[in-house]
């Protein structure tokens, strides 16, 4: 009991400290500040794009992992979720040496298609997707596994093609898991720092997202860092509250 209280205190104290030092009077001024608004807008755009990319690629991957029994499935799952446990900066380094201009694949992207990823806004999206998609994949995979497959059988006996079954029966049935996974991935993308700064750099307007701006501000203008932190806390907290029933409630993410 005492240890549990200690744990709660441990989680609460940093926020108390942060709010204690919060220059409330300057909040409005900083938030309307151009560089801050640019960073916030970039963060929102990139994290939403990363979420969309995670959905488009992650849902089929989750379906594959949940449904198709192929040799080495465990290895593939581990590989696809590695970036969740990997230090993000390592992910960033890996991305840099693969998709950088002189990277193993990046050089061909450049010479064949003229695409140069590093230090662009797209690099931010790629870095965020890299670390965020596993959250979606794992959540959606769990939801698909919990699904009663007989509903899909029923749909097939009614003449539904596999694609029709997937988008008219499977997807609606895993909606709660899908939403939970997408929100988690989005929150992770929003907070992404290490892989972004390594692979995309820190250029205001193109790659400087909120977490990067916050870190930078800490060195020059601690008040601003506090306020930027507040914004991220509010957003994260709102996400947690929104997911309360599905994720924190422990009722499982996918019981459609």
């Amino acid at each position: 009991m005492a240890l549990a209280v200690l744990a709660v205190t441990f989680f609460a104290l940093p926020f108390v400290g942060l709010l204690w030092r919060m220059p409330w009077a300057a909040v409005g001024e900083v938030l309307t500040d151009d560089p801050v608004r640019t960073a916030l807008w970039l963060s929102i755009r990139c994290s939403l794009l990363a979420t969309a990319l995670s959905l488009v690629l992650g849902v089929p991957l989750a379906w594959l992992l949940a449904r198709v029994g192929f040799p080495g499935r465990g290895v593939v799952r581990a590989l696809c979720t590695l970036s969740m446990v990997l230090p993000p900066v390592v992910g960033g380094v890996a991305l840099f040496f693969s998709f950088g201009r002189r990277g193993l694949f990046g050089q061909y992207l450049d010479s064949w298609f003229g695409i140069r990823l590093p230090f662009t806004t797209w690099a931010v999206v790629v870095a965020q997707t890299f670390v965020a998609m596993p959250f979606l994949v794992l959540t959606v995979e769990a939801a698909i596994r919990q699904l009663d497959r007989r509903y899909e059988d029923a749909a097939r006996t009614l003449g539904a093609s596999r694609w029709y079954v997937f988008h008219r029966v499977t997807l609606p049935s895993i909606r709660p898991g899908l939403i939970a996974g997408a929100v988690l991935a989005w929150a992770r993308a929003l907070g992404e720092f290490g892989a972004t700064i390594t692979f995309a750099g820190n250029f205001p307007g193109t790659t400087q997202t909120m977490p990067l701006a916050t870190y930078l501000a800490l060195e020059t203008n601690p008040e601003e860092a506090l306020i930027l932190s507040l914004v991220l806390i509010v957003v994260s907290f709102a996400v947690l509250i929104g997911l309360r029933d599905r994720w924190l409630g422990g009722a499982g993410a996918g019981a459609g």
Partner: protein
Amino acid sequence: MSLDATIALRLGLLDLDVHLDVERDELLAILGPNGAGKSTVLRALAGLMSIDSGRIAIDGAMVDEPAAGLFVPAEARPIGVVFQDYLLFKHLSVVENVAFGLRARGVGRADARRRAAEWLGRVGLSDYATSRPGALSGGQAQRVALARALATDPRLLLLDEPLAALDAGARAGVRRDLRHHLRSFDGMRVMVTHDPVDAYALADRVAVMDGGRIVQLGTIAEVTAHPRSRYVASLVGTNLAIGVVEGNTLTTDSGGRVVLVDPPPGPAFALIRPQAIALHRPTVGDVDTGSAQNRWAGTVTDVDRLGDRVRVHVDGPLRLTAEITAAALEALDLRPGDPVLAAAKATDIESYPV
């Protein structure tokens, strides 16, 4: 217009090998205990699983023939299925559920809805068109499932334990409804059930399955009058001895002997109705009295009271159930574990060849 299916497949411990013929306008019930392979037959007919060997033809069109490398999946077969728990899509309204098959086949939204609404009218559920399936009773859900299965105009309707999900109180009424609605469908129908009452009420013919084989096939009257398996015998509440006849005596594997009148030679069944069996307390120096030629010594295992009548289960060389009056039971004072002598006249026992 018929279903012609020879299904052989292995699934875990199940070794399935059956042949089914169903004519147009006919309802065949597959009756059998759990694990007999009934539902697997249904899944194979539906195209939800492929067979290892054999062939399935619906109206002359081959839909599964492994030898020819042919397998038509469920979505391309002219079938409708009513599943055991009905499996209505929870995220769709009732009318959308019924329209699902039409929409999946490319029928326009408005047209599909109109036709679905017609079907709902036919099963008397027009008022529930916009309800969610969760708001329906078991019987209503079954009618929606039936309407959904029939809305696509299937040639073959498959019903998997259509009454098993209902509580006992609702079953009789729903069974009557189902009988009525099934009559309006003139295609072939195959129903899987473990309840002989369902088969009796709904089926034209019954295929009794046990251990992956069809052990008896015929009209319900034939099957119940001359059961050819202990399973059916126990379902209809009678005693069946299976053995070999020599002279006028049938001997079972376990050494039980039944004296018969003019029995067929060779392997045969002896049907001993519980009402034909009299029970006695064995006495010391038991003298053979009375005209009963069959006297079996055994032990009482169980006593079931059914109002004025009592069913006494006797274990011995033959396992028998005798039906006597409650008064007789009182006079005999029989309890489980007591020794008992069961007797039956040879003229009361029917015999027929295997």
